[in-house]
């Protein structure tokens, strides 16, 4: 067998992802890339790859992969227990897989998405500057789609990288506490809802809905929002939650009909006609990618200063991982 892996079983919706494809949002082509970027970066560093190498993102259920050459592998993010030829190996730690061996996974314990980095990276063609998969547009990754049984993925050239290196437990960032707190900056069309509705939005506990994917995470369980009355502007549409179709920031929280907030994620629709009440701060987007359906969540208000402080804290963790593995 050559320098490749064969997909024996694909998992639920396993895709090739790197850190994303910026620069084409004005044409409706979203960022894509790992939903939990910190986990992909950590997995790559563990196996000696550059942080932005392409790996696999497995959601809820892992794939079964047969290796065509020796490789160093690491699995970070969700606690989806990896096994080599049936033998359990740890997450957040590099391990060796020999040519002919099979990497498979047990049942998901915590989190939602596991990132599988393989030394040398997944060598699919670079499309518009990235190897990430954007399935809605049939773009990038392996043939523009999630993996299927029988697929063969080429691996890049790898230097030697030791097994047994691990990310210290304190640096394994993931959503904690219940309810999980997601920080957001109110804004965009926040002024469209009443003061009472705004206060209640932060006070209530929401739950991740089953409709939660790479495009966006839907939440339910809170009280529908009340809107400030107005005559709808020309071109906006008749529902009070409608606006003249506009861009949607990555992380923005739209509330169609005022009922169920949706946080757009890496495969975001780039625009549309629903008002948004604000935007999840960049530091907390990784955490959303690890939420399972039915997880209780509270939105917590912050300001720009708070958002930037959280951004720096997250970057400091990435730096510590980098230094630890250097």
């Amino acid at each position, binding site marked *: 067998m050559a320098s490749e892996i064969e997909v024996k079983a694909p998992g639920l919706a396993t895709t090739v992802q790197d850190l994303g494809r910026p620069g084409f*949002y004005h044409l409706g082509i979203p960022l894509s890339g790992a939903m939990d970027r910190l986990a992909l970066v950590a997995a790559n560093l563990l196996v000696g790859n550059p942080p932005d190498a392409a790996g696999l993102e497995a959601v809820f259920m892992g794939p079964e992969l047969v290796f065509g050459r020796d490789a160093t592998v690491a699995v970070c993010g969700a606690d989806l227990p990896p096994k080599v030829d049936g033998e359990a190996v740890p997450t957040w730690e590099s391990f060796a897989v020999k040519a002919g061996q099979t990497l498979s996974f047990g049942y998901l314990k915590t989190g939602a998405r596991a990132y599988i980095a393989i030394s040398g990276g997944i060598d699919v063609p670079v499309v518009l500057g990235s190897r990430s998969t954007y399935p*809605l547009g049939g773009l990038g990754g392996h043939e523009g789609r999630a993996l299927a049984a029988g697929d063969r993925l080429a691996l890049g050239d790898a230097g030697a990288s030791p097994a047994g290196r691990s990310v210290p437990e304190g640096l394994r960032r993931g959503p904690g506490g219940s309810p999980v707190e997601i920080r957001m900056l109110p804004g965009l069309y926040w002024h469209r809802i009443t003061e009472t509705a705004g206060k209640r939005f932060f006070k209530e506990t929401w739950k991740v809905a089953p409709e939660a994917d790479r495009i966006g995470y839907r939440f339910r369980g809170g009280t529908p929002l009340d809107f400030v009355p107005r005559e709808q502007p020309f071109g906006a549409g008749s529902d009070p939650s409608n606006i003249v179709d506009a861009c949607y920031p990555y992380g923005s929280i739209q509330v169609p009909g005022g009922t169920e907030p949706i946080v757009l994620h890496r495969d975001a629709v780039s625009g549309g006609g629903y008002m948004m009440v604000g935007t999840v701060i960049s530091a907390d987007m990784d955490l959303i990618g690890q939420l399972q359906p039915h997880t209780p969540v509270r939105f917590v208000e912050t300001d720009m200063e708070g958002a930037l402080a959280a951004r720096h804290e997250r970057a400091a963790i990435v730096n510590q991982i980098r230094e630890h593995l250097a």
Partner: protein
Amino acid sequence: MRYSFGGDEHIFVEVDESMSLEAFFKALSITGAVRDSAIDGVTEICPANASFQIKFDPDRIKPDDMLAELKRLERSADSAPSVIDTRIIEMPVFYNDPWTHETLMRFRDRHQDPNATDLEYAARINGKASVDEFIAAHSGAPWFVSMVGFVAGLPFLYQMVDRPRQLEVPKYLRPRTDTPKLTVGYGGCFTAVYSVRGAGGYQMFGITPMPIYDPKSEHAYITDDTMCLFRPGDIVKFRSVDRAYYEDVEREVAAGRFAPKMRDVTFSLEEFKADIDAYNTKLEGVLNGQ
């Protein structure tokens, strides 16, 4: 104009709450100025119908500095003439086609008027005597691509007529789970051409045989290396065609021989507003090589 931070990585700017050609032009002009000034740290520049959005890296440019830059560019855009160099493109549309008809019949329970088709409903609420009269209005005056997005390469189009002649229809009561690829849809005051098959809430009027998104690089006329035919600012003229014409184009597309009618053109908002019908006739002349 209303500025709002979208988290720590975006600035969202609403030029106007309402749709108008003036608001669209202003958004296009400022985003053009942002692109030209090549500000370090800007990663995405997205003009929309009556608003725009800038994505930036706050590690490279502070959010307040980014905001100050945009306000400075807004002031200089105010004095710029509303003239753009753009393209006019003809898009053949098979209105009232069997495929969108089959789809809309499957989703009648989500529609305002389950006993009419989308076209019959749109004609009635816009005061047209017949579906044909509605199609004549839709394919009469040209349209501006006022935004590209939602999904890859999907254009939103705003018709180049004064407000009393604007066609308006609501979206479906509940979105459909299916829309055929290349459906010509309508919601609010916008036409949208669905670049890929998928969910959708716009009323369905017809279908075009002309692909507009090309992830596999199969169509020579989509020369842009972004794989998307349309850009904000393009002008589009719909041409109502019958089934035979539709199938001809489809065959030409499959054989890799199809090229839409497409010309470079300069558009002036002031000249357009001075005499809309005469200006549109002139544009159509350019399209037809006259």
